[in-house]
């Protein structure tokens, strides 16, 4: 009986070893989706991050429209650059305030240990990353619409703007997700998050601002391609580095 059992189990081991690549990926993706769904469900019930993101975006758009609303009517290069800068500043600060919640909340509610014992580290990272991408997409949609309506920003090339927002948002999400994991157990989380985020986020931010200014003006999609390539490469590099780094951050 035991001999038969061992033979069968050994068969499974061999099969698992041979197919470990695809099995492992499927398992991690399944667990990642579970983490994403859990976080989304929790977020929809508490609405903590969404409230922070939307309120920040709305405040920024209203403040800009009341303070320098005339800037939206001007079509000079400087005015377009200022419009793009204001848009990305609003996005950046909202993201810095809301996107670290994923990991910080696990630490503050002390659910981190339960998750560490049960979930593969990579699944935790991917699940949190997916939620940040979703939140950032919602944030970008709301902020852009508010800027268009309240600041009367005119968009020369909607396609280039959407591409830049998507690529820039992805850059922000990759950078903020791994930073949130790093600072989750630190004492001064917000301050540390801002300090660490600054050098990591400034390069893609500058490129995104310039590309957005071009998209608001007469620049079409071809003109935005170099910026999109840079932002895409930045996102891929940060994402891959995060995948390699996360296990050490998670198990530290």
């Amino acid at each position, binding site marked *: 009986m035991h001999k038969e059992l061992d033979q069968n189990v050994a068969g499974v081991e061999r099969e698992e070893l041979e197919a470990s690549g695809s099995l492992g990926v499927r398992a991690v993706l399944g*667990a990642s989706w579970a983490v994403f769904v859990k976080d989304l469900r929790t977020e929809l019930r508490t609405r903590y991050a969404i409230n922070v993101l939307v309120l920040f975006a709305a405040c920024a758009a209203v403040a800009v429209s009341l303070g320098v609303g005339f800037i939206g009517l001007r079509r000079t290069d400087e005015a377009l650059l200022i419009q793009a800068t204001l848009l990305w500043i609003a996005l950046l600060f909202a993201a810095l305030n809301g996107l670290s919640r994923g990991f910080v909340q696990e630490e503050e509610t002390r659910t981190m240990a339960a998750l560490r014992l049960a979930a593969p580290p990579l699944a935790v990272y991917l699940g949190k990353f997916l939620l940040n991408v979703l939140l950032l997409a919602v944030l970008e949609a709301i902020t852009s619409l508010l800027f268009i309506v309240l600041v009367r920003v005119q968009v020369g090339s909607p396609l280039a703007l959407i591409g830049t927002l998507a690529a820039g948002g992805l850059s922000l999400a990759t950078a903020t997700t791994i930073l949130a994991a790093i600072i989750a157990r630190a004492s001064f989380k917000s301050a540390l998050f801002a300090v660490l985020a600054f050098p990591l986020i400034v390069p893609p931010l500058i490129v995104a601002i310039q590309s957005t200014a071009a998209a608001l003006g007469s620049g079409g999609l071809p003109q935005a391609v170099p910026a999109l390539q840079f932002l895409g490469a930045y996102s891929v590099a940060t994402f891959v580095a995060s995948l390699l780094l996360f296990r050490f951050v998670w198990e530290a």
Partner: protein
Amino acid sequence: MSGQPALCNPTSRTPPGRVCEHHPGFQFLCYNRQVETRLTVEGVAATYGARRVFADVSLELSGGEVLVVSGANGSGKSTFLRLLAGLQRPEAGQIVYRCGGQALDPRDAARLIGWVAPDLMLYRELTGRENLRFFAEVRRLHLDDGAIEALLERVGLAGRGDERLATYSSGMAQRLRYAYALLHHPPVLLLDEPGLTLDERGTAVVERVIAEQRRSGIVVVATNDPRELRYGDLLLRLGT
């Protein structure tokens, strides 16, 4: 090997070459193989800042044994269990889990463990059932509603699974911790203050869980409650 594990038998439940539907992945390869799990602690020490909590703790446990860890407040009972769970690294020494004589990677060893402790928190915004389903999914266990209901019933939460954890009493939350810990049929159960906030029925659940676990698995209980000392075959006193 001590005792016969009360687990599903892969040869009768799954075709050869397939992962068991109830215990896919690691459990199937190790625990359900019906080989003995052993825990070896060698010269382990822990510190809090500059203060050394305990040092040079060595012991060996195998399936069917129950260890009770006792000691004054601050003697390091909870820390010792966190070390065993892999949630903290020892200052010195090592902790090794072996299945069938083969030492496991610490990352895999975490999947052998069921951990119940006062500082184990589950998701307050989710219901009891949602919590268990989530942890089953990330552990890659395919549990249907019936299996989760059976688990809830086992810990005395039958009919309360659809209430949010935030509305649970402290005793109900403790019972849900047991359900979380037992979800994957772990061969090693670590119980820190197992009877915390539990009523008589809850205490009976703990006794039943320990009795079932000791048929094949390892149990480590950290407690100061004299009534809980009786759970153990072995006693480790810290801070003496």
